[in-house]
């Protein structure tokens, strides 16, 4: 059954909130901005270079501790039961990451794809590669470069940017049970207490 636009949006929002909770329950993430909260929109929204339209991520925020301390991320959340048209969405998402990185590199330390179903399992090991990013950008050439043919787009795509984006990609596949298997509230409290003590 095909979901209506409104239902898709609601399901997306649900996915974003569930992803936020799971990410934050790792204690390494603060997903401060959630689409479609109005104050979050200016932080999560980007403009396609061509065509006058925009796109926005579902989540944005910062990572904590260790090698990720203070780094920023954007996340796309897909609360689908099966692969459905996730592959198409994923391709678009990769092209969006390319655009976002070019526009605001300082905010784009990580791009996370958070879904409840895998997709493209036959090419699973290729999903986070420079090739996948390049291919996605070429597919979205009208929005990215304003050109219609692949050869034209190939002249314009920046290999280095594709590689930078690929190095920032995360693939997170969740399941309902996995959402439960997180640090216990008691132990989470210890970490938070540590942070509070640090706050003086």
């Amino acid at each position, binding site marked *: 059954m095909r979901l209506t636009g409104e239902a898709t949006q609601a399901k997306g*929002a649900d996915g974003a*909130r569930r992803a*936020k*909770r799971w990410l*934050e*329950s790792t204690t390494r993430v*603060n997903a*401060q*901005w*959630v689409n*479609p*909260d*109005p*104050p*979050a929109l*200016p*932080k999560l929204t980007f403009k396609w270079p061509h065509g006058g339209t925009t796109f926005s991520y579902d989540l*944005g*925020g*910062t990572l*904590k501790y260790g090698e990720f301390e203070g780094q*920023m991320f954007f996340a796309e959340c897909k609360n689908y039961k099966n692969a459905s048209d996730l592959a198409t969405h994923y391709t678009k998402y990769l092209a969006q990451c390319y655009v976002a990185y070019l526009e605001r590199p300082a*905010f784009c330390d990580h791009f996370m794809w958070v879904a409840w179903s895998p997709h493209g399992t036959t090419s699973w090991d290729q999903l986070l590669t420079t090739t996948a990013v390049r291919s996605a950008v070429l597919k979205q050439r009208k929005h990215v470069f304003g050109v219609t043919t692949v050869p034209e787009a190939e002249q314009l795509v920046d290999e280095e940017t594709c590689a930078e984006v690929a190095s920032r990609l995360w693939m997170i596949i969740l399941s309902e049970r996995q959402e439960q298997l997180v640090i216990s*509230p008691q132990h*989470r*409290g210890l970490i*938070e207490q540590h*942070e*509070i003590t*640090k*706050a*003086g």
Partner: protein
Amino acid sequence: MGDLQFTAQIQEGLFDPSPRESVFRVKNAVSKELFELDPTACIHQTDYFNHTFAPDFVLTWPDQAERHVFLRLSHNLVAVTDDLTLIDRKNPLVIGLTPPSLDDPDLDLLTEATSSAEAMFTDPDALESLIQTKKGRPAINLLNNALAQGGRGLLTRERAKTLSDIVEKGFSGAVEADFSPTLDAVNALTDSLYAPQAWRINRVLQAIWEGSAAPTDLFPGDPDLSGQLNVEALQYLISYMDTDDLSFWRRVGRNLTVPQISRLNGRTNSQNINRLVQANLDVIKARACSVIEDPFGIDSVSDSHEPTWTVRDERLLFSGADFHVQVGETKADLLSKEPGREDYGISVNYFVERAHETNLNEVTMRDGRDVITAKNEDGELDSDHILGLASQLGPSAEVTEAVAQSSSGRVTANFLNLTGTGQTRSNILLADLLTTALPLLHSFDAEGLHAFRKALAFEKVTTQDVALFDFDFRHPDDSGAK
């Protein structure tokens, strides 16, 4: 303060396109707003923002109370409601950064969830309303502190205004023992606060009611019949009350005792200890005091000539520019004499000089093993009489003890251990004890003596007088305010 200052700052900060700048601006504005709401709270800011589990701020108070504050983007009340159930901590304070619309159909859900989570949900508008209302209103100061520590339920701007109005009227009503507004305030406070905070603020309300000479058992609600404002309630006032209005301190301190004062933690707000004692000098009784050279390791005495009251290590102290006196209800309450101190009196000439304004009944002098006690059963001893007797003892004669008459009873000043004591079973006022004993025990210069007497001056007031004090919880701008 302009209208909606914090709400505007928070809204502008929220929509800043830079995520980091946005968080910084919003948290900075909320931190200032929390401080304005309750300046007694210590505000600890964490690195988190709008985190599901971790607080944005932790508020702590001198009495060990603590509350976690969670900021929420509150356009979607269903999401806020869901998140409330995930907060691990009981009794959180949740601030929805965008005030909810009163006709939002999800408001009821949020109210229910707030109750289940034992939380308070409020917004910058509501807090700003409380901040604007508190100026010059001691009751609202207490209310704001109580809400910050233990407010519960949904507190919108409208509810905050209604609540502060009711509390204001209740405190004004209690001054005149007016049952109906007092009852409304008791009920509103009980509904809006968790039990410890509701009890404390209602106990203050009861003390004000009692200050009007109304019977305690007629106080609405569930009156505390222990007979006096207990130490916990007094400590609450000392820690959180923000008023220099002595009539307020007078009203709550009519039954004040030295042991009660000594148990207060004066470090939290020493100014309030001073106000409380000063305002009640006409009723506080004390039968013992002693001059201390170096009290409890305080190396320097007050810089000011104006003596002040403090509590240290469960002792009530009265300290001026060059002296410290500890006060006890009885002599047994005083610290024992400092070890190594010699037992010596003061020269007779010196004593006569110090005693020139004192109504002396009896003076004991010695020279070696010879002791003379001068007494005048019919009235006061004059200096000539004392000097005449001293001359019989010899040039090294010293005064060891003197008994003097104060307004509320006889006081013995002992120069060997630098104590002043009232007669057993006497009802000597603290102020009388000190104004009689200290000028004998301590050498004041003219300026110091003037400041000392001024600090201990009081007018005897009756219960009716207390009720008639210009003591008004209403705002000066309100029509009909005194």
